[in-house]
């Protein structure tokens, strides 16, 4: 490892780092804006999630208010999580990674900043629309049509910026993260436009619309969030430990099998429904085939990490990245098996699905976005994270919250499904039986929110200028705390006056 490190330093050191500084300088405003917005929406989504969760065990909570009825807050929760947090954080990640890997300055920064602002306004418009009762009623595409231009136009800017960087790239080699990023920018627009056309614009109706809806609903996670997360993992793990990624061939196999199979998995969300058998069968096979890319990517990441696990003790970036990669494997295995008809007979329509979604989104995608921010922010701001303790809190809250959430919901879902399939158990008894688990979900939500708040404090601290500068990175085992900054500022003040 030491040899590797030295080789790396010798090879690229002088010119390389100057370039990185340039690239980071050019992208700073855009990326920080995107990530700050993403964290804002993550907080909104968490609060909406917690409100819906409480409503499910205490229906009287904020009851009788039309704006805050369960069916609306629940839609706001998912849409802000996937578009607000997911979409914005992933776009920031995409732009930063692409700029770095292509070694080019961020193009069209003004346009991207304006686009970022418009995109966020679009989400706000959508959220208010849903709360006012103007949801389209199509799951994951709830935003009223009038919010769509705000979301589509800025995304076009991002796509253009991404392609511009790619075609200006310095090296002839394309790194695996870039494949995924390119794929996202091709897939996502096709996905959104065809799904909107089929559902809200009314090109098809009835069951065909349901298929288009779930083809989209599954792919927005699979062809947008997942590839961005994988791209981040492919970048961060080798970058932090300073070793090359294990195998180019496995990267290749993982990428193309993922691209080919994930597309087809969506219809398993309608297993048992009024669909022609063949559509569901293709969905089941698409999901089961996901074992190939998931295992391949898992091996590739694991073999790269091998021998460097001790770094997890100190590096915040690595810890979040490895947590994300591991839960990627776990939640994808779970998802593939979940598609089987015999499994769906029990767990479909239950809390199991919800547990799975959170293991994927909060166990895999979110930690990788956090890892990205932990890594890039000190470079962009040229300032260190000001509190190691808050990073530790953030990490443990994320891990414990996710596992509690996933564990409680998946277990409850299996039992709930088995009871629903036994007609001698009255429905209300099942509702009552799930309540303790719904409560532990609220608890898990609060834990996750506490982690987010800890991160927010640190984030605000790193973007606002302060006196104390550190020369070393903030590692997990350091005792650095922002109280030190306050003290430093107090000391600094009298001198100033």
């Amino acid at each position: 490892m030491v040899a590797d490190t030295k080789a790396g330093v010798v090879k690229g050191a002088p010119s390389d780092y100057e370039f990185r500084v340039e690239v980071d300088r050019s992208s700073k405003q855009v990326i920080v804006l995107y990530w700050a917005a993403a964290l804002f929406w993550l907080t909104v989504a968490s609060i909406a999630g917690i409100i819906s969760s409480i409503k499910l065990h205490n229906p009287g909570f904020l009851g009788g208010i039309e704006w805050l009825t369960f069916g609306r807050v629940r839609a706001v929760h998912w849409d802000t999580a996937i578009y607000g947090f997911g979409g914005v954080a992933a776009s920031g990640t995409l732009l930063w990674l692409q700029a770095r890997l292509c070694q080019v300055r961020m193009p069209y920064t003004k346009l991207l900043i304006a686009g970022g602002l418009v995109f966020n306004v679009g989400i706000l418009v959508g959220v208010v629309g849903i709360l006012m009762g103007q949801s389209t009623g199509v799951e994951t595409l709830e935003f009223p049509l009038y919010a769509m231009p705000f979301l589509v136009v800025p995304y076009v800017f991002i796509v253009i910026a991404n392609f511009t960087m790619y075609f200006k790239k310095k090296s002839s080699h394309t790194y695996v993260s870039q494949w995924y990023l390119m794929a996202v920018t091709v897939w996502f627009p096709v996905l959104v436009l065809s799904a909107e056309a089929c559902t809200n614009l009314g090109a098809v109706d009835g069951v065909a619309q349901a298929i288009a809806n779930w083809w989209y609903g599954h792919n927005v996670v699979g062809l947008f969030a997942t590839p961005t997360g994988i791209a981040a993992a492919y970048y961060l793990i080798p970058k932090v430990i300073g070793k090359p990624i294990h195998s180019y061939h496995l990267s290749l196999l993982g990428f193309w099998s993922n691209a080919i199979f994930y597309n087809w998995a969506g219809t398993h969300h309608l297993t048992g429904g009024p669909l022609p058998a063949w559509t569901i069968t293709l969905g089941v096979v698409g999901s089961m085939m996901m074992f190939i890319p998931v295992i391949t990517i898992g091996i590739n990441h694991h073999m790269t990490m091998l021998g460097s696990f001790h770094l997890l003790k100190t590096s915040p970036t690595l810890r979040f990245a490895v947590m994300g990669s591991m839960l990627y494997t776990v939640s994808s295995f779970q998802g593939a098996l979940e598609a089987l008809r015999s499994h769906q007979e029990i767990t479909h329509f239950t809390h199991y699905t919800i547990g799975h979604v959170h293991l994927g989104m909060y166990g895999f995608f979110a930690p990788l976005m956090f890892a990205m921010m932990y890594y890039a922010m000190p470079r962009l701001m040229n300032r260190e994270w000001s509190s190691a303790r808050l990073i530790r809190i953030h990490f443990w809250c994320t891990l414990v919250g996710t596992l509690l959430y996933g564990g409680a919901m998946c277990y409850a879902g299996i039992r709930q499904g088995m009871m629903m399939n036994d007609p001698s158990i009255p429905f209300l008894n099942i509702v009552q039986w799930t309540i303790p688990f719904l409560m532990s979900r609220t608890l898990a939500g609060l834990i996750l929110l506490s982690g987010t708040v800890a991160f927010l404090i640190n984030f605000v601290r790193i973007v606002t200028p302060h006196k104390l500068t550190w020369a070393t990175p903030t590692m997990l085992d350091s005792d650095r705390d922002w109280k030190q900054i306050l003290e430093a500022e107090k000391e600094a003040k009298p001198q100033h006056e």
Partner: protein
Amino acid sequence: MSRTFVLAFGILLTILSSVTGLVIIPNWQFQALKPVVKADGRRYPEAYFGDSAKGRGVYISQGCIYCHTQQVRMKGYGADIRRGWGTRRSVPRDYLEDRPHQLGTMRTGPDLASIGARQPSESWHALHLYDPQLTSAGSVMPRYNYFFDEVKRGQMPPADAIRLPGNGRGDVTHILPNERGRQLIAYLKRLNQSFPLPEANQ
């Protein structure tokens, strides 16, 4: 450059193939499905009109879909039919008039595909929507009290007001569905998949 071409073209191809396979082809197959004409000359499924069409809008705007499905699974797969949620499985033809579809994927509450057949009583729906605890103690369904005008104790209830059981709820003794409440109930009563379709026998 050729590698870039393979990458971009391959990526595009993967998604176009699944759009074709999962969206375009099924839709094209569904074109052949037509409503059936019943013995009394009416079509099944009938288009939504009047109150039931508006009630469908209310159902969507309240997000009932996050707790209720509208699809009955076949006999022997789950216990939907044995629970009385329908007499047969749902088939694509049942949804010809549904736009947007409201199939749903979550059953915090029971399936509603045939709620109109299972619970035709308007006053039951009114009481249940006004406060689910009145009819189903321990339910976690939210109150939709804003779909009702309330009659307070001491006021003279209109003739068609619905009396709350027992001593009422707080000050309220009777309720009367308002416009949206009537529309929603009309929609719920319209949800009925009892009509036997031949393809449902599979």
